[in-house]
Structures are given as structure tokens and as C-alpha cells.
């Protein structure tokens, strides 16, 4: 039997969920033995591969790049996990939603800048009107809220997912904390 193919992705988040993932500590070795990590900020693979069994998605969908990425991810992934509060609720990236992109960028790059006042338009992806939770854009199979979800909770989820079970974390996981 081939090992399940695991991926982790980082959209509009702070990487805190991935830090919490690293807090699995010695359990990472076990996860590494049970699954192939085929795509992640932690490994040097450039393109999201096909045939991924489980993907943890950290971060909100906030830019056109995020939108393109998450659609590809959904298409190539069997079980998509909304990983952490930014992915689940849009959380801190969503705090800009009541302000609007125009006024937001003006405030950050014009009002508060003393040198080279300009809204960046090259290289950086264009922001969407609102930072959205992942399930507002594509279907999500498992929700793992928390800012960040604890390493124990991540382990509990992965333990089930890598064994082909659907985890029920709803009463163990909470927003924030």
C-alpha cells in the first residue's frame, strides 16, 4: 500500500499554524514515516502536485494569487482541511474587510509613507475586495479552527486523516486562544 500524500499550504496567514505544526516535535518523525510530504513551505517543491490525499490550508483567500492557488489545490486534493482561524473565518486578514481595499492601501502606502509614496502594483498579487475564508471559495472537508490550533489537535486530526478516517474535532477545537 502506498503512503498517503500530504501537503500543507500557506495563503494569507502569519505562518503561526505552520509553527504549531512544527510543534508536533518528535511526532513529526512519525508523520514523516506515515505520509509523503509532497508540497509545503517546509519542502522545496515549486508546483502543487496532482493526487494529493490530504492538504492543510493555512490562511485566508485574500489575493488573486490565493484564489488561483486554492482552486488548483481543491482540484488536486482529496481531503482539504481548513487549517486555523484565518482559513476558517478570515480572522486577522479579514479585519480589513470593513475598510475596503482602496482606503486600506492608501492608508498603508500613501498616508503613512514618507518616501516613495506609491501603491505597489508589480510582483505583489492584487488584493481581492475581501479576505475570505477558504470555504467561501471552494468546498472544505474538515475544519480545524484555532489561532493557532494546538499541536495536539493537529496531531489528532492528522492521525485520523492519514488513517483514512474523518476527524471530528468540532467540540475540541475553538476559535482564537
Amino acid at each position, binding site marked *: 500500500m502506498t503512503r498517503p500524500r500530504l501537503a500543507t499550504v500557506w495563503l494569507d496567514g502569519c505562518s503561526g499554524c505552520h509553527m504549531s505544526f512544527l510543534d508536533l516535535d518528535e511526532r513529526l518523525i512519525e508523520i514523516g514515516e506515515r505520509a509523503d510530504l509532497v508540497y509545503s513551505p517546509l519542502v522545496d517543491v515549486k508546483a502543487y502536485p496532482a493526487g494529493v490525499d490530504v492538504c492543510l490550508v493555512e490562511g485566508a483567500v485574500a489575493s488573486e494569487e490565493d484564489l488561483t492557488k486554492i482552486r488548483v489545490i481543491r482540484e488536486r486534493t482529496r481531503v482539504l482541511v481548513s487549517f486555523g482561524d484565518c482559513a476558517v*473565518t478570515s480572522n*486577522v486578514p479579514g479585519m480589513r*474587510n*470593513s475598510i475596503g481595499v482602496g482606503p486600506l492601501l492608501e492608508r498603508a502606502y500613501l498616508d503613512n509613507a514618507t518616501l516613495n509614496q506609491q501603491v505597489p502594483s508589480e510582483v505583489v498579487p492584487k488584493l481581492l475586495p475581501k479576505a475570505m*475564508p477558504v470555504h467561501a471559495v471552494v468546498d472544505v472537508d474538515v475544519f480545524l479552527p484555532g*489561532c493557532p490550533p494546538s499541536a495536539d489537535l493537529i496531531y489528532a486530526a492528522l492521525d485520523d486523516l492519514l488513517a483514512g478516517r474523518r476527524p471530528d474535532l*468540532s*467540540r475540541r477545537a475553538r*476559535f*482564537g486562544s
Partner: protein
Amino acid sequence: MTTVHTLTIDGAEVAAADGQTVLEVAREHGIDIPTLCHLEGLSDVGACRLCLVEVGGSGKLVAACVTRVEEGMEVTAHSELLAEHRRTIVEMLFLERNHICSVCVANNHCKLQDIAQDLGVDHLDLPAVNPDVGVDASHALFAVDHNRCIMCTRCVRVCDEIEGAHTWDVMGRGLAARVVTDLGTPWGTSPTCTSCGKCVQVCPTGALFEKGRSVAEGAKHRRPFLPHLRLIRDEGPRS
């Protein structure tokens, strides 16, 4: 002599005194019904709707906190449908304002956060309102962050019924409703507020808080080392 009524809650036969609410009787008998706006010692208004129960076979939903017991009443406090309604209510409470638990002054000390977890609300399906609501930090000791308010009106009731000041009230209707101080004037200029802080204590979320407790302010007030700097510089390193 008090009249005693017999009724059933989730099939269990219970006795209740005349005038008691369904919520009171349920809790007396260890039947847990979630609430946010109810607080022991304050009047009940049925604002949060979380304590919705079904009475009789009618399918009619009533708030247990404001429904008096009646003889022969058949109350359903727990069913899959009620659980679904309660989850939807919690969702709406989250989405009507901007609740960002991770950076909230009440993170881990919040009834809304607790209840979401208890009821298994692990994501929000309805669209977010993302209203542009403000913060009034004009009071010397306290602040109100409308982003975190769930309109439970505990603050309004404690201020009126216990402190007797009635500084707080509600202005506007529906999504536009807000708790206000003195007809919508800045809290800091209130001639009626006694600065007793009861509103802050009864607030179940991070809407009302003591200044100096927010994420951004937190560390700034705890710098016990600073007074020693001068001393250390004057005395120099110990030989």
C-alpha cells in the same frame, strides 16, 4: 401556599413553583440550556434566543428564560433541530459584528467563544456583515468595542437595575442597533455614569473592557524593571 406545577422537560417529569421560568426549572434539575443574555440577578429579556425550547407538539419555539411554567407543559430543550437553530444563532452573533477571537481582549474569557465550542460551531457558513462600527474609548477607565458586542443588553440591565444609573440603553433597530451611553453621547462625558464598572463585569464578550487589557496595550503596563534602570546605572556593575 405556592402552587406546584408538574411538567416534562425532555421527557423527564419535573415539579416547579408557580411563576418560575422554564430555564430556572431546567437548571434546577440539571438540564443544561445554553444562554448568553441571561444572568442570575438581572431581569430576563430573551435577547440572545439561545435558550429556545419547543413547547408541546406545536413546534412553537419560545425563549426558556422568559417563559413561565404551566401545568402539564411538555418542553423539548434538546433535539437535533434545536441544536441546529442554536448553532445558527451563534453563527449570526459572530457574523453581525467583527469578532476576531485571536486578538480580542476577552480571548479565552468569552461566553460566545465557549458556547461556539460547546455547540460545535467550527466554521461560519452565512455571509459576514463586516459592519464598520466604532470603539468609544473616551471613558478614563473603560472602553466599549462595538465590534465585539452581541446586543445581550446585560450592561443596560445591570446599570439600570443594580447600579440605578441607567447610563446604558439601546439605540437603533435590527442590524443598526447599538448599546449607547446617555442617548448616544461619548461615554467619557457621561454625567450619569458612576464609573462603577458593573457593565464591564457582566459583559459576556470583549465588548466592554477595562483599559490596559487589550492585546496592543497589554505589555505596556507591566514594566517593573524600568524604575531600577537609574539605580543600576548610578551604582554600576558590582565588583
